[in-house]
């Protein structure tokens, strides 16, 4: 397994070998070659508005802390003490004047530089140098802040963030532009949902539009049967507006289209998404036009992408103020974090709709999430079968995908093109790392 050249053999034009989902050794390699090389989403800087605010998370298996320094700059530091390697910051988030390791009390500035070593004379004539980076909380090699969205890579040898994001940057910009003040703000703590599956199953599913009308049929029919029992002229509840699009037809999704981009990214829709039909929220258009004028507002709101995937770690939508973060734990454990944000300057009603949406779709107790969970789990249960070695991804191979301006190739919405794109890139990463992915 550990032979990297083997890796490319696991991906063919129209299928991938089941071991990419099942083999612990491959997961270990992914931690180094994908999660250790790619730009990975860390957090949004609105989580740490004030100097000394910090937020702890992991990039792959490396504990890191995102912190706001005195100069207002956002640093992403390795959350590892330069002395004997203890994790320094234990809390999920907080505010501090500086970092202090609780084991032997080494202390660090907010930029990770070591400033305090108790009883220091014990290090005289040992070659110890307080300035030596090995003793600091070192900075993660590459960090970029795009409209407040902080990405980082454990590797210094990465493409520029612009090159990496490519056309997905338009999703990020659109998400922020939809705020009359042009900024978003994270609200509350996230949903943290444990999935007993390989992280790639979740990522594939994001642009899998062959599944909603099947795997999520029950909640739609339950909602319909409920409405059928209501008296004439019952007002159509927002919940229905959120649930029903998951039952949209194949034609609808095919028309929406799916676009595959460099580095494994992709998105569905463009002009239209399953959220296009949402009713307007009073005061929002006014606020937008006041900020942007009619033209620009129309332009902003005309972009409608459903589930933009920034491979491998991150997904967001234009029209819903929620983002999901992929946290691979082991070959068959993945935690999905869902974060929610406010469009600064927009009516609070926008936030409330997003919260309702996410509770109905992303919560571990929703009537949607557990059905996705179950499908991933069933793949694990089925792939252990000795009866087959490969997972098919040929759908759409028959049509020529047309190039899209802004880059990438567009195919009909239910094509497997985004899966094939992900694994083409996966194989490159596994062989060589990000630089030539």
């Amino acid at each position, binding site marked *: 397994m550990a032979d990297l050249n083997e890796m490319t053999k696991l991906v063919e034009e129209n299928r991938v070998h089941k071991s990419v989902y099942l083999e612990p050794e491959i997961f270990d390699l992914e931690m180094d070659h994908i999660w250790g090389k790619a730009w990975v989403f860390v957090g949004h800087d609105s989580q740490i508005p004030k100097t000394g605010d910090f937020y702890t998370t992991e990039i792959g298996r490396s504990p890191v802390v995102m912190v706001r320094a005195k100069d207002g700059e956002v640093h992403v530091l390795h959350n590892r003490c330069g002395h004997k390697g203890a994790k320094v910051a234990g809390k999920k988030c907080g505010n501090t004047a500086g970092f202090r390791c609780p084991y032997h009390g080494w202390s660090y500035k907010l930029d990770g530089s070591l400033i305090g070593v108790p009883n220091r004379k014990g290090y005289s004539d040992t070659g110890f140098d307080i300035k030596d980076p090995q003793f600091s909380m070192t900075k993660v090699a590459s960090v970029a802040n795009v409209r407040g969205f902080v990405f980082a890579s454990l590797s210094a040898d990465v493409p520029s963030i612009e090159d990496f994001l490519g056309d997905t940057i338009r999703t990020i910009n659109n998400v922020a532009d939809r705020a009359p003040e042009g900024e978003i703000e994270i609200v509350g*703590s996230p949903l943290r949902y444990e999935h007993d599956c390989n992280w790639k199953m979740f990522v594939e599913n994001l642009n899998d539009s062959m599944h909603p009308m099947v795997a999520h049929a029950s909640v739609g029919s*339950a909602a319909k049967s409920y409405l059928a029992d209501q008296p004439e002229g019952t007002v159509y509840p927002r919940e229905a507006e959120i649930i029903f699009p998951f039952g949209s037809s194949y034609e609808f999704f095919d028309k929406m289209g799916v676009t595959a981009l460099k580095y494994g990214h992709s998105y569905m829709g463009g002009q239209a998404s399953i959220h296009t039909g949402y009713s307007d929220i009073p005061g929002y258009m006014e606020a937008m036009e006041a900020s942007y004028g009619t033209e620009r507002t129309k332009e902003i709101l005309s972009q409608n992408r459903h589930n933009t995937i920034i491979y491998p770690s991150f997904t967001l939508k234009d029209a819903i103020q929620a983002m999901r973060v992929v946290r691979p734990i082991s070959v068959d454990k993945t935690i999905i974090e869902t974060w929610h944000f406010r469009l600064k300057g927009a009516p*609070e009603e926008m936030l409330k709709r997003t919260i309702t949406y996410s*509770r109905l779709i992303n*919560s*571990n107790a929703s*009537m949607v999430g557990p059905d996705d969970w179950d*499908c991933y789990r069933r793949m694990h249960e089925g792939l252990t079968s000795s009866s087959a070695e490969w997972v098919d991804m040929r759908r759409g191979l028959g049509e020529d995908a047309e190039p899209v301006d802004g880059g990438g190739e567009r195919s009909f919405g239910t094509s497997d093109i985004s899966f094939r794109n992900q694994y083409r890139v996966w194989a490159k990463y596994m062989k060589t790392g990000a630089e030539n992915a």
Partner: protein
Amino acid sequence: MHNASSVSREDMLLIENFLYQEAQYLDDGDLENWMSLYSEDGVYWMPASPDQTCPLTEISILYEDKLLMDIRRRNLGHPLAPSMEYPVRGSRILGNVHLAADQPGGDAIRIASKFHAQLYYREEVTHFAGRYSHDLVREENSFKIVHKRVDLINADGVQRNLLIYI
């Protein structure tokens, strides 16, 4: 506004049995009868963090009115739902039932209790523990739930599938 003295021992016994009845319906997966214990404007809330104050502007694990309860009732065990191909069986225990220190005011009584619940699903037992807070209004010789808050001890922790109310 209620205080310990204002709830008779008889009422406390009625209330305890009322809460046991609610737990029983959930253990049995009988959402139809379970819903009937809630007032028309009744709400079930399971926050996603301890001390969460607003269910509308912050995410919750569950926040459902009778509309959603009814949709969920129809979805439970639905033949088209992958997750519903397996039964969910539960055993909920309530303890330490007492009149809450903080009362909602109005004519509702807030009853606090502790719960431990075990749900069996997909060959695995999952444990849930925390605090219940029931706001009850008297109706005829029984009660209705106007608000139930379920604070898990790990509300902000990593969660697994939850297919029915706790």
